[in-house]
C-alpha cells in the first residue's frame, strides 16, 4: 500500500511537468490550429536561461521568474515575425516553420551551451527528502507537482473567469467573429503564443534541477507532450490535465507492471485512444 502511494507520487511529479508543457501546446493548437514543434524547444531554452542566470546570480527564485519572462518575449517575437508571415500559406507551412525553428534552437543550444548535461543548484531546503508514508521522499518533486497544480489552477481561473480568458476561448471557436466584436485578435494570438512559450519555459526551469539541463531535453518531452494532446484531445485544457495525469502514472506504474514495454507504453496508449476515440478523450468530434 505504501509502495503504491510512492509510485503514485512519482507519477504526479512528472505529470505536473508534462501538464505545464502540454497545456501551452494544446492552447496554441486550439486557438491558432498550429502544432508548435518548437514548443519543447522553449522548454529547453527556459531551462538554459535559468541555468545561465543561476551561474551568474546564484538565485533560483530569480531564475524562476526571469526566464519565463524572457521566453514570453521570445514567443511574442516568433509569433509576430515568423509565424504570422507564413500564416496565409496554410497550416502545413506553419508547422514546417516551427519544425525548422525547433531544429535551429536545438543546434543553437548546443553551440551556446555545449552538449554536457548541466546541473542547476536549488535552494537547499528543496534538495532534501522528507518523510511521508514512512519513506524518504524528495521535497523537490512535491514542489514541482505543487507548482504545476497551482499554475494549472491559476490558468483555469484566468481562462474561465477573466475577460481575457473568455476572449481566448471565443477565438478558439471563431476568431473572425471575435475580431468583428472589436477585439484585436492578432494581439490575442501573439499573447497566447507568448504565454504558451513562457509556460513551457517555466516548466523548463523547474525541470532543470530534476532532470538536468541538456540539449536532448526538448526532444524527450516533445514526444510525451504530443501524446498528451492527442490523447487528451487537441485543444482541450481539461484533456491535457487528464492525459498528463494518465501518462505520468502510466510511466511510473509501468516500471513495475510492464517492465518489458516501458519504451512503447505511451505509444500503445495513444494507439488505443485513437482506435476508441480518434478525437481524444476531451476532443470535439468534427
Amino acid at each position, binding site marked *: 500500500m505504501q*509502495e503504491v502511494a*510512492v*509510485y503514485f507520487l*512519482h*507519477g504526479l*511529479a*512528472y505529470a505536473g511537468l508534462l501538464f505545464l508543457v502540454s497545456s501551452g501546446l494544446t492552447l496554441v493548437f486550439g486557438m491558432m490550429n498550429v502544432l508548435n514543434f518548437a514548443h519543447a524547444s522553449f522548454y529547453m531554452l527556459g531551462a538554459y536561461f535559468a541555468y545561465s542566470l543561476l551561474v551568474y546570480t546564484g538565485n533560483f527564485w530569480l531564475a524562476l521568474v526571469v526566464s519565463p519572462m524572457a521566453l514570453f518575449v521570445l514567443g511574442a517575437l516568433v509569433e509576430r515575425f515568423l509565424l504570422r508571415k507564413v500564416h496565409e500559406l496554410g497550416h502545413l507551412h506553419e508547422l514546417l516553420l516551427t519544425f525548422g525553428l525547433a531544429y535551429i534552437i536545438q543546434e543553437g543550444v*548546443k553551440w551556446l551551451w*555545449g*552538449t*554536457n*548535461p*548541466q*546541473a*542547476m*543548484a536549488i535552494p537547499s531546503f528543496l*534538495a*532534501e*527528502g522528507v518523510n511521508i508514508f514512512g*519513506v*524518504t*521522499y*524528495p*521535497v*523537490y*518533486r512535491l514542489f514541482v507537482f505543487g507548482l504545476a497544480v497551482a499554475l494549472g489552477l491559476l490558468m483555469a481561473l484566468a481562462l474561465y473567469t477573466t475577460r481575457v480568458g473568455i476572449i481566448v476561448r471565443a477565438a478558439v471557436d471563431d476568431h473572425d467573429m471575435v475580431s468583428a466584436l472589436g477585439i484585436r485578435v492578432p494581439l490575442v494570438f501573439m499573447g497566447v503564443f507568448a504565454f504558451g512559450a513562457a509556460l513551457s519555459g517555466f516548466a523548463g526551469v523547474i525541470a532543470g534541477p*530534476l*532532470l*538536468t539541463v*541538456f*540539449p*536532448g531535453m526538448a526532444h*524527450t*518531452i516533445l514526444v*510525451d507532450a504530443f501524446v498528451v494532446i492527442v490523447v487528451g484531445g487537441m485543444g482541450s485544457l481539461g484533456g491535457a490535465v487528464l492525459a498528463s495525469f494518465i501518462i505520468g502514472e502510466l*510511466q*511510473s*506504474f509501468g*516500471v*513495475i507492471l510492464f*517492465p518489458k514495454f*516501458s*519504451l512503447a507504453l505511451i505509444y500503445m496508449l495513444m494507439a488505443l485512444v485513437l482506435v476508441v476515440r480518434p478525437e481524444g478523450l476531451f476532443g470535439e468530434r468534427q
Partner: protein
Amino acid sequence: QGVIKLAVMEPLSGTFKDIGDRYLEGVQYAAEVLNAKGGINGKKVEVIPVDTEVKPDVATRKATKLLLQDEVRHFCGGTGSSVGGAMSQLVEQHNALFFSYGMDAASLTGDKCSRNFFRPSCNTDTHSYALAQWVADKGMQKVICIAQDYSFGKEATAAFVKKLKQLNPKAEILGEIYHPLGNKDFAPYVSQIISSGAEIVFTPNWGNDLTLLLKQAKPMGLKAKFACYYLNDENCITAVANDEAVIGSIASETYMLSIPLEANKEFIEGFKKAKGYYPAWLRGKAYIAVMFWAEALKKAGNDKVDDVIKAWEGLTYDGPAGKWVMRACDHQAQVPIWMAEMVAQNPYFKHAFVGPATAIPADKIGVPCEETGCKMKK
C-alpha cells in the same frame, strides 16, 4: 620525410560532442608527445579530426574521402559501436587500419572481428567481469542491475551476471532493470531498487542516464552504492552536483587519474603542463591507445598497413595504465581494469572524484580466444 596521417573519427558536433572532444584531446596530446621526440620512424604524426556525428553513413563517407583523396591509412575512434562496425567494414575493404580506444561492443572483436580492426582498450565483457570480480571479492551478496534497454546495456549486464554467478554462486541477483535509453524520470526505478534491499547496484549507464540515476537516487534515500562503468567522468560528477550522491560508489576503467604508476604520474604532469587541465578518463584512454599504436609502427619500422598489423599482433606496451598486450587472435588488447572508490578529497578536483585505484589483472578477466566467436581472415 613525409607524415603519418591519423584520422580521428569522433562526434565533434551534436549530442556527443563532449565525448568526441575529450578523446580528440588525448589523441592530439599523444601526437604532440610523439612529434616532440621526432615522430615515429622519423615521420611526424598528423592528426586529422573528422566529425562522425555518430552516424555510420557520415563516418564512412568522410573516411572514404580520406582514403581515396588523401591517402590516409590510419584511423581511430572511440564513440559509437555502430560507427566502429561500419569503419571496420570500410577499412577491411580498402585495407587500411582502424583502432578504437572506446567502442565497447564485444562483437567488434567477436563475431564481427576484422584483420584491420584493433581494440587497444577493454570491451563490455572484460569491463563487466572486472566489476563482478570486485563485487565477489568484497563478498557482497545482494546485487541489483539497472541498465539502458539496448544492446550495450543488455550485453554488459549479461556479462556481469554470468561472471558473478561463476565467482560467487551464493550471490543473489535481485533484479535486472532495463529502462529506456535517454530516460527522463528515474524515481520509479529508484523506488524499485530501494525496495529490493540490494547492497550494491551494478550499472553500465552512461551520459545523462547515469547522471540522473545518481542524482535522483540520493534524495530518495537510497543507501546502496553503485558499481559503475562510467563514473570516472568529471562532467558526470559536476552534473550530478551532489557529492554525497557519488561518494562511496565504484568507478572502473582501463584508465583513471589515480592509477599509482610512475608512468601515469609522468603522463599526468606532462599533460597538465601542456594543456592546463587533467587528462581524466577519455583523454587518457585515447592517449594510451595512440601510444600503443605508435609502438606497433615503431616495431614495424614503417607505416604500411600490412606490416603494422603484423607488428601489433602480440605486442606488449607498458604505459600509464599498466601492461597491455595486443592479442593476435582477435586484436583485443588484454588490459587490467582499475577500480576506485569515489572520495570527497582528491588532488584533482574540488568535487568528489576517484580515490586510489587498484588493478584487477588482465588474466582474471580476459575472455579466452575460443569463446569470443572471432574467426579472423588472415
